[in-house]
């Protein structure tokens, strides 16, 4: 078997980072949702909120552990797979990753112990503060990582010296042009992902009639959050797209499968982009659409892929990933509003709504992955846009080593993913046997860590 080591290195890194992002995508949002449950309980003394916390903190612990172990893998793979990246861009990547570990990783990892197991060992206040540090740590972690990723997309504040990046201004490096958009896009994605997880699992439990009132209360929280975040996310995504058009026009051209530069560019709803003939086979188009969306003017100019021959990403995969993300985004909006309308206007949700929510439990994952494929594959062939290409920095492992370890990783990750979902199912199935939500508030969960 003769596979290109560069391709293998990319697939391996992509497999790892795809697996990893699934868990922060939940824990960033879920951390704050847990604080909300905690505060509601502290304020009202209503056992249902404590019950909600007890249930979801277990999911959080599991998710967090999966995120930590796959995140540690990431920190090593920068060096094992892309040694050239650290040699050339280490002056930027090193400090940003370093600040992530020092300011965020230690914070969340240390206070997690108190958050999970320390409720009886510290005061309510200290426990709340610990939970806050964990949630804050996960968000801060995202801040540094997205800053570095954004710098790779839109590098500023540096100059090259003998082919090595030297920093001129840290403010410009950290707050590079695409950073604010990518950061808030990812945070909103995480909140949406966890909102649908919370709503979906609760709907599943409601369908199976596990734990009545508390389940419904949690579902309402998830649905309301999703209904608010879905339109907000579409708005942020639109801003992000306009920013990308300004800085990475080749990526936008691939996302929209636009080959020729022009004005009055239509929006291609579906098509089969063919890189051989450099054209779209069978395209369904909306006139003026792309110009309107990207420049907010029907006459706006959109650059085509033919302006970037040899320096643009593979078109079909970026085009389709973008449509998957967009499709799920719209679906999220429709389902969350439909569910919100039933839950809050009629006080009850019917079976179709519950089934739709349950089916959408992991929809956030698909959208997050699709979105990352758009932005990461859309950056190819560059690793730092316009500065270094991916092939400049790859390690020279034999393809036998690479395919062997790749096989091992993929097997492990599939097994872990199945175990994770299996464990969620186990947790969801189990009613809190000793929980009485009636007038006698006797609360003694036998849940063990």
């Amino acid at each position, binding site marked *: 078997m003769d596979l290109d080591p560069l391709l293998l290195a990319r697939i391996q890194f992509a497999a790892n980072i795809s697996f990893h992002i699934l868990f922060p995508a939940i824990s960033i949002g879920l951390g704050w949702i847990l604080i909300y449950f905690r505060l509601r309980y502290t304020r009202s003394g209503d056992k249902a909120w404590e019950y909600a916390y007890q249930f979801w903190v*277990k999911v959080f612990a*599991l998710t*967090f*552990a*999966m995120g*930590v172990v796959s*995140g*540690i*893998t990431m*920190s*090593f793979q*920068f*060096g*094992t797979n892309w*040694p050239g990246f*650290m*040699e050339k861009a*280490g*002056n930027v*990547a*090193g*400090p940003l*990753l*370093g*600040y992530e*570990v*020092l*300011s965020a*990783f*230690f914070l969340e*990892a*240390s*206070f*997690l*112990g*108190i958050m*999970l*197991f320390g*409720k*009886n060992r*510290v005061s309510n206040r200290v426990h709340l503060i610990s939970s806050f540090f964990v949630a804050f740590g996960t968000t801060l972690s995202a801040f540094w990582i997205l800053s570095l990723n954004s710098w790779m997309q839109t590098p500023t504040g540096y100059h090259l010296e003998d082919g*090595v990046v*030297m*920093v001129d201004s840290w403010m410009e490096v950290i707050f590079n042009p695409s950073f604010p958009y990518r950061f808030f896009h990812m945070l909103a994605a995480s909140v949406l992902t966890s909102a649908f997880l919370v709503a979906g699992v609760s709907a599943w439990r409601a369908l199976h009639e596990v734990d009545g009132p508390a389940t419904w209360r949690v579902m309402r929280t998830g649905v309301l959050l999703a209904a608010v975040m879905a339109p907000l996310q579409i708005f942020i995504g639109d801003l992000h797209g306009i920013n990308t058009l300004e800085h990475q026009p080749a990526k936008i051209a691939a996302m929209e499968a636009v080959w020729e530069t022009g004005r009055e560019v239509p929006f291609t709803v579906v098509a089969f982009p063919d890189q051989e003939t450099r054209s779209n086979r069978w395209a369904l188009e909306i006139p003026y659409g792309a110009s309107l969306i990207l420049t907010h003017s029907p006459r706006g100019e959109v650059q085509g892929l033919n302006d970037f021959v040899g320096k643009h990403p593979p078109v079909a995969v970026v085009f389709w990933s973008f449509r998957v993300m967009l499709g799920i985004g719209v679906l999220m909006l429709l389902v969350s509003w439909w569910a919100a309308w039933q839950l809050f206007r009629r006080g009850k949700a019917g079976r179709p709504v519950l089934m739709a929510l349950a089916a959408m439990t992991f929809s956030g994952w698909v959208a997050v992955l699709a979105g990352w494929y758009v932005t990461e594959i859309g950056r190819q062939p560059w690793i730092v846009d316009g500065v270094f290409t991916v092939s400049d920095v790859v*390690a*020279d*492992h034999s393809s036998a*080593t690479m395919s062997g*370890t790749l096989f*091992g*990783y993929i097997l*492990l990750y599939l097994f*872990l993913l199945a175990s994770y979902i*299996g*464990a969620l199912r*186990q947790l969801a199935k189990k009613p809190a046997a000793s929980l009485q939500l009636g007038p006698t508030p006797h609360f003694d*969960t036998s*849940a*063990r*860590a």
Partner: protein
Amino acid sequence: MEYWLPVFYMAAMGLALLVYVILDGYDLGIGMLLPLAEESEKDVMVASIGPFWDANETWIVLGVGILLIAFPIAHGIVLTHLYLPVTIMLMGLILRGVAFDLRVKAGDHRRTLWNRAFFIGSTVAACAQGWMLGSYITGLEDSTLSLVFSVLTAATLPALYLVLGCGWLLIKTEGRLLDRAIGWARAAVWPMGLGLLVVSIATPIVSQTIADKWFSLPNFLWLAPIPVITSLLYLGLLLMLRRDELLQGSRNWLPFAAVILICLMAGLGLAYSLFPDIVMNRMTIWEASASVKSLQFTLVGVVITLPAILVYTLFVYRVFRGKATTLSYD
């Protein structure tokens, strides 16, 4: 600045990795001991490390992080060369880390499976780390001698972790499990001692550079306290492990402290052997260092956060002081 910044980062990296070996060492050691315990005892053993393991593991990320921040060129060389053991270690750490949760959340029928995963993950990670250490000391060469040495360290580090794990159990457990832990400690202390002795003798044999650094006057006299103190600590450890009343009493933390000091001594010896090379015989810390501007920028962060990390780490250990009971989310 050009001289001292890399030295500072080298020291910080060494410290982070030393703290990692001690902290994750004890919980990997407990993972390796897991099959020896009875079902109910397994829960207590896992509970004794449950609140800490996550933060413990972060120290290796900091160590590798500093390698990346301060010595980006060496980071590439070292990790490319150690690709295979690093990958194996990561898979072990992944398995061990998820097993913490899944052994109780995946349902009772899966418990045995995840207990086994916990054990295998811990053992594999410990052995892979020993292998990496050996390979690093011998300058990342592919010679047979280097390979033999790596096998030796791959057996010694897990033995050290086992004793650390026992030491932690002495502090955190009581009753029958404590009796068992005492038995394990008495057994595990021998392979550890043998391993450390053989590695200490083998190191100057496999590395001429290290031999030259140690066996020349007056260096030898300055360095003599390191092996002498280590030997005394080891003897002390042996004596302590023979005294039941000490192990059952309030000074049961002494064996753990002795092993920590042995780790510290080994760390000092290793640091002296390697300095100033970041890749043995190939690259000094100054040749591998990042730009002064980048190092200064991160220095600010290190100076502010590291003391804070130490303070809240101590705080967490204080919160969970005393004997371990089964963990609960209450």
